[in-house]
């Protein structure tokens, strides 16, 4: 039986029982206004619901009764016993029809016209002289072979294989038969229990499960036979109890669908499409907590299906399909999961257009695309903001918010997949755990500590070892650990490293291959024990800031164990979308150590066009700020950050702070105590690349473009964006450095890019900077007698290089005593030695702003101290 119908029947039963007694009360005291209102409301509800369900016969009877009651309520018709009798007989008819629905799912055939006529007459104030008898034997049931329409419906329920735990209908035929009333109405055996009670029960059962696990572990260790049998029994009962209590928290997924028919109806009117909503498996149950979390994503997906998936009637006709499009919702259980499918028979996703758009949005490259399966291409619609571009409706347009849907589903440990056939339709398949309270986890060890790793997200476990025993080996590209797994290169993170624990043997252990948010990566573990069902408990408030853990639990042996959060690990490892300090740590030292001229670059996306880049060394931190924390100060968006106000400058025009808890990635630049945040759309990657900048088109805010990771990438002009944060941003705020006493610096650097980077940094550091592009120009200044407190020079320059420049300066002239700092991407010891020999005071790696400022401070303070 349709679950909606079952719900209706339960509700109607309740309503009818209440009506019977209310009507009797009304008959006794016709002026009792509250009772009259109650009666009216009850009949109205029945009428409304059956109209919704398309039960026309029931609706007509209820409607006629409602009319009479309406007049009673309004006081335009006096309540008379004959009127009440009439209404009671209408109710009896309703019961008979309901009983018929209950027995075979359809309205029994019957003739209600005389009853309705009598009711209408009563409503008009005529005395219903002939209250028609309750027509127990239906008048000549010509076309009603199914229903015997006997007053006693000995309902052998045909479609009740799923007993509702919460609303268990008593389907004992004997009880039905014995039940009062003509229709053999079975009162539903339901009680209302507050959620709190159920939650408490759940907690207690969780404790019981833990204690049971502990006992089992003890019994295994002690081999005490005497306890074996009762323990076994205890174990079974506990499991049953757990299951039973879990069931009380379960609700049919139909509850989350209840609003969808209306939504689809409105949508079809709005869009001028004919849409049919087909909901299957609405009785499939899942934890109410999960249910609440899945409601919005589902609504969104259905709306998308109707809006973008289905074609207009004309298009459908042209495609040889029926005019009415179908949206199919289907839910069923599979393993410990519930599968929900949201499908349509619309136009399907246009693979080619998605390809083109992914390219246009800079999400991928031609080469990568060529190797992608169709499935992988389709997955682009889950990329953030995929269809926010102009051609929303022309192209599939499905991406509106699909990233949010995906994120929300992943938050509760679920996955979304998608299949699409062009012209035939699209189906999203959501897989979510039945409950969040109990999870299956791998017990693993890293750095001498045990942790629980939730199994959802773990794709496979790979044993890694020394080369000779044939197991795959962890390899290293510089410091980055990778695993060659089949044809893929899997980035690895060491759990011990992330948690700052002493790592065990590097060469032997396990790699848990994880799939988090479309990213695959491996977690290096020392050991893997077994799997255990764990009861997830939240961590204490003082530990909530550690994003690496999603909770903690007690194992069978009684020890407390932390539960790892794969999402947090992915973020901390920089595998996910947003990055953290971990990435900075990996990136920054690399700059100073490099012997070739490559630079750690942060790749991100913002505004139009392809990816953008900025040298990682210039960024103080990467933050992910909830949209609600971004406030407006006048016209400037600001965020409270580390005890101060940080202006947030959007990189793209028309940027709006995201609302609510949506997170805004922000690149943080700091100087002294001040910070400025550059709002970008998404942080993509950190790469070591040789920068070869092609001069740009003069677009403000960009220095030019470079080919990074095979893609044309615009390099942003940090100075420009810093200036956007407010003009006083560069003004030194150290009172000790009044303008008059600002040390003057000369910067000799052939690359405009570096000049752009270094000058603002130095200005902000309280220096007055003159930047020149070659030593020849600098020497001209020397001849003019311009004094400088210190000189910073590049080494590799066309024409006269830095070494020759230094030698020239030291050979004599006004600048021969000035501190001379070499700024170079070459920082090998031999280079440093060569530089010092040529007369450089210090040697600093390019991009290492902190080191440069430190070196300057040292150089400039030394003479004073001497």
């Amino acid at each position, binding site marked *: 039986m349709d679950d909606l119908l079952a719900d209706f029947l339960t509700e109607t039963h309740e309503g009818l029982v209440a009506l019977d007694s209310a009507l009797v009360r009304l008959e006794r005291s016709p002026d009792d206004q509250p009772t009259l209102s109650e009666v009216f409301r009850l009949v109205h509800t029945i009428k409304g619901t059956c109209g919704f369900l398309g039960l026309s016969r029931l609706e007509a009877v209820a409607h006629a009764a409602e009319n009479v009651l309406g007049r009673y309520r309004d006081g335009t018709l006096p309540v008379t016993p004959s009127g009440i009798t009439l209404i009671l007989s209408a109710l009896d008819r309703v019961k008979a029809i309901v009983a018929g629905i209950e027995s075979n799912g359809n309205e029994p055939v019957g003739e209600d016209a005389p009853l309705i006529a009598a009711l209408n007459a009563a409503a008009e104030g005529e005395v219903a002289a002939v209250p028609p008898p309750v027509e127990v034997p239906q008048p000549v049931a010509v076309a009603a072979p199914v229903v015997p329409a006997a007053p006693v419906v000995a309902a052998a329920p045909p479609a009740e294989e799923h007993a509702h735990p919460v609303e268990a209908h008593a389907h004992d035929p004997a009880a039905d038969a014995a039940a009062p009333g003509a229709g053999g109405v079975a009162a539903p055996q339901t009680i209302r229990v507050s959620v709190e009670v159920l939650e408490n029960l759940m907690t207690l059962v969780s*404790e019981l499960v*833990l*204690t049971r696990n502990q006992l089992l572990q003890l019994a295994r260790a002690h081999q005490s036979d005497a306890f074996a049998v009762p323990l076994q029994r205890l174990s079974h009962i506990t499991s049953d109890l757990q299951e039973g209590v879990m069931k009380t928290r379960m609700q049919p997924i139909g509850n989350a669908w209840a609003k969808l028919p209306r939504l689809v109806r409105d949508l079809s009117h709005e869009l001028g499409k004919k849409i049919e909503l087909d909901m299957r498996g609405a009785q499939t149950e899942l934890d109410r907590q999960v249910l609440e979390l899945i409601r919005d994503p589902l609504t969104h997906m259905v709306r998308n299906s109707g809006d973008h998936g289905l074609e207009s009637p004309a298009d459908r006709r042209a495609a040889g399909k029926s005019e009415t499009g179908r949206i199919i919702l289907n839910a069923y259980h599979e393993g410990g999961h519930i599968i929900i499918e949201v499908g349509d028979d619309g136009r399907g996703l246009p693979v080619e257009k998605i390809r083109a758009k992914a390219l246009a949005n800079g999400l991928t490259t031609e080469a990568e695309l060529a190797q992608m399966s169709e499935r992988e291409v389709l997955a682009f619609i889950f990329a953030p903001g995929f269809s926010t571009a102009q051609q929303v409706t022309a192209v599939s347009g499905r991406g509106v918010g699909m990233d949010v849907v995906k994120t929300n589903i992943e938050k509760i440990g679920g996955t979304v997949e998608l299949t699409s056939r062009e012209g035939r339709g699209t189906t999203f398949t959501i897989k979510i755990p039945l409950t969040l309270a109990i999870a299956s986890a791998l017990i693993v060890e890293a*750095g001498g*500590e*045990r942790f629980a790793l939730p199994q959802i997200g773990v794709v496979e476990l790979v044993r890694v070892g020394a080369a000779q025993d044939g197991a795959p080996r962890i390899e290293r590209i510089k410091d980055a650990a990778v695993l060659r797994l089949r044809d893929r290169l899997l980035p690895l993170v060491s759990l011990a490293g992330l*948690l*700052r*624990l002493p790592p065990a043997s590097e060469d032997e252990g396990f790699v848990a291959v994880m799939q988090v948010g479309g990213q695959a990566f491996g977690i290096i573990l020392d050991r893997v024990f077994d799997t255990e069902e764990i009861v997830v*408990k939240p*961590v*204490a*408030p*003082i*530990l909530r*800031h*550690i994003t*690496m*853990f999603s909770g*903690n*639990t*007690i194992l069978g042996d*009684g*020890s*407390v*164990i*932390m539960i790892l959060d794969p999402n947090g690990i992915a973020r901390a490892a920089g595998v996910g979308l947003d990055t953290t300090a971990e990435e900075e740590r990996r990136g920054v030292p690399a700059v100073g150590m490099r012997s070739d001229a490559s630079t750690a670059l942060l790749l991100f996306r913002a505004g139009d066009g392809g990816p953008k880049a900025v040298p990682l060394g210039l960024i103080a931190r990467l933050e992910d700020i909830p949209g609600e924390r971004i406030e407006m100060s006048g016209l400037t968006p600001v965020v409270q950050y580390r005890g101060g106000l940080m202006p947030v400058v959007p990189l793209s025009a028309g940027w709006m702070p995201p609302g609510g808890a949506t997170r805004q990635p922000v690149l943080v630049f700091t100087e002294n105590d001040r910070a400025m945040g550059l709002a970008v759309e998404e942080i993509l990657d950190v790469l070591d690349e040789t920068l070869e900048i092609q001069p740009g088109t003069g677009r403000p805010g960009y220095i030019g473009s470079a080919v990074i990771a095979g893609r044309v990438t615009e390099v942003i002009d940090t100075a420009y964006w810093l200036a956007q944060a407010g003009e006083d941003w560069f003004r030194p705020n150290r009172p000790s450095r009044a303008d008059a006493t600002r040390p003057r610096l000369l910067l000799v650097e052939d690359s405009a890019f570096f000049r752009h980077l270094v000058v603002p940094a130095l200005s902000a550091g309280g220096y007055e900077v003159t930047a020149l592009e070659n030593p020849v120009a600098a020497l001209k200044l020397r001849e003019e007698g311009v004094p400088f407190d210190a000189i910073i020079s590049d080494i590799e320059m066309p024409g006269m290089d830095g070494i020759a420049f230094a030698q020239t300066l030291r050979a004599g002239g006004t600048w021969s005593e000035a501190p001379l700092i070499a700024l170079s991407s070459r920082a090998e010891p031999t280079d440093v030695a060569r530089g010092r020999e040529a007369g450089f005071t210090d040697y600093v790696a390019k991009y290492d702003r902190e080191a440069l400022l430190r070196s300057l401070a040292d150089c400039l303070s030394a003479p004073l101290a001497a």
Partner: protein
Amino acid sequence: MQTAIAAKAAPPAHLAAPQEEDVFLTLTVAGQACAVPVMMVRDVLGAHAITRIPLAPGEVAGSLNLRGRIVTALDLRLRLGLPARDAEAPPAMSVVVEQHGELYALLVDQVGEVVPLPARNFAANPPTLDPLWREVSKGVHRQEGQLVIALDVGRVLAIG
């Protein structure tokens, strides 16, 4: 409220039973006697297996299982800026306190006894007290030749 009354009615309070608010559990950290209101104490434990929590604030010793409930353990020595316990020293004892429905175990060197510390023997923090201690101390009780620091449990737990 009641302490105020007790303070005013000092002479008869000698005879009266001590108010519950005035009953403390004494404990020792690195030789210093401290006290926590007995009303907040849920349990006192001997040596207990504690799971370390990586990345947690330094004062957090880890978490332990108290009859199926997870208790976060704080090392009171570290919280008070005192040197860590010697490796050979007898294992720490735990005083389990409850705050906002969460259980916390304070690791201490020794647990003393439950004693009434009447309000009339109470003195405010001396201004010279270490700022870290001043933050977590409600005041000082003079008790038979020793000074007992009345710990403000809420403040002690306010870390991270």
